[in-house]
């Protein structure tokens, strides 16, 4: 049944990503250049609603939580490498698949690059596991563990901060009237 749920969630997620414009590499670059915060505000809203939803529901429903471990070197180095690729290509692992669905040609190259990157990681895994993935592993810790507060309280606090930020910050910053990319 999980497979069916995941397929349906994926379809809905694909529609949302396409509609908000996150599968557009130009939109991603405008986000990273802080010219257009639409995608960042979309993500922040998603997290705000999700975190309250999950932790409020978890007080009276069994939830399938799956916290990823915090191994400092791998998580931070991986994020820094990911950020470079994000800015170079304008895609993330999911948005290039959505992009292929909406017939973007360059999305195929991002997917191929992704498969190549995963292949490279597979080949070097046994070399980097001990130095990068094992040390400084704090396990499945959450912000609630750090501040010693109930998760639902931290979730509501985080949501309040995120929603305040998306409300106060401007969405589009026009720079000399033009801040957009062209097409080939």
């Amino acid at each position, binding site marked *: 049944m999980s497979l069916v749920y995941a397929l349906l969630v994926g379809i809905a997620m694909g529609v949302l990503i396409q509609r908000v414009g996150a599968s557009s590499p130009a939109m991603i670059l405008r986000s990273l250049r802080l010219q257009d915060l639409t995608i960042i505000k979309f993500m922040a809203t998603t997290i705000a609603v999700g975190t309250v939803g999950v932790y409020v529901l978890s007080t009276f429903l069994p939830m399938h939580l799956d916290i990823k471990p915090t191994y400092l070197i791998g998580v931070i180095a991986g994020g820094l490498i990911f950020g470079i690729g994000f800015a170079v*290509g304008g895609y993330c692992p999911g948005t290039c698949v959505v992009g292929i669905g909406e017939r973007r040609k360059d999305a195929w190259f991002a997917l191929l690059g992704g498969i190549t990157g995963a292949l490279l990681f597979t080949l070097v895994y046994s070399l980097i596991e001990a130095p990068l993935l094992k040390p400084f592993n704090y396990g499945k*810790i959450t912000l609630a563990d750090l501040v010693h507060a109930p998760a639902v309280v931290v979730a509501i606090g985080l949501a309040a901060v995120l929603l305040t930020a998306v409300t106060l910050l401007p969405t589009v910053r026009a720079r000399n009237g033009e801040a957009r*990319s062209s097409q080939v």
Partner: protein
Amino acid sequence: MTDLTASTPLAVPRAATKFPRWATLGILFGLLSTAAIALYGPIGVSGTYPRFVGALFRRVLPEYAAANPYLVKMGSLLTPETMLVVGLLIGGFVAAQLGSARAPALETVHAGETTPGRRYRDAFLGGLFILFGARLAGGCTSGHIISGITQLAVSGVLFGAAVFGSGMLTARIIKGGR
């Protein structure tokens, strides 16, 4: 604004014009990610790539696939995450078909992308870096940033900060394409 609207179709009419579109879509995505965690587990994408690599190896080099600790750890493609990725493809297709504006086949995002070939090069290199980084960190935008921070995971917060810090710096160094 012509090329901009192509990537952000305005097909869905909204009654409340004051309420921003990103907020509506963000609320829907938040409810969706909550539903996923209630039904089967947090959304994630990037693990599908090494599982796909593993499926290829099991076809052509089964001994290597069985001996590589990472491919063994990641397991087969028969997981909810694979189905989610299939769904993304369908969702992107459906949304594009129903939308009024067609997505451009190619958008250039950097000044150096003067030919389609150079754009493809950047897309390929970008894809390579994001997947290597995501596998090193154990998740991507979906698994670490959306699902991770939603579950208040410290790893998600750190990954998100690293991604946006490095992404903003890189975008600045490359210099904008117009």
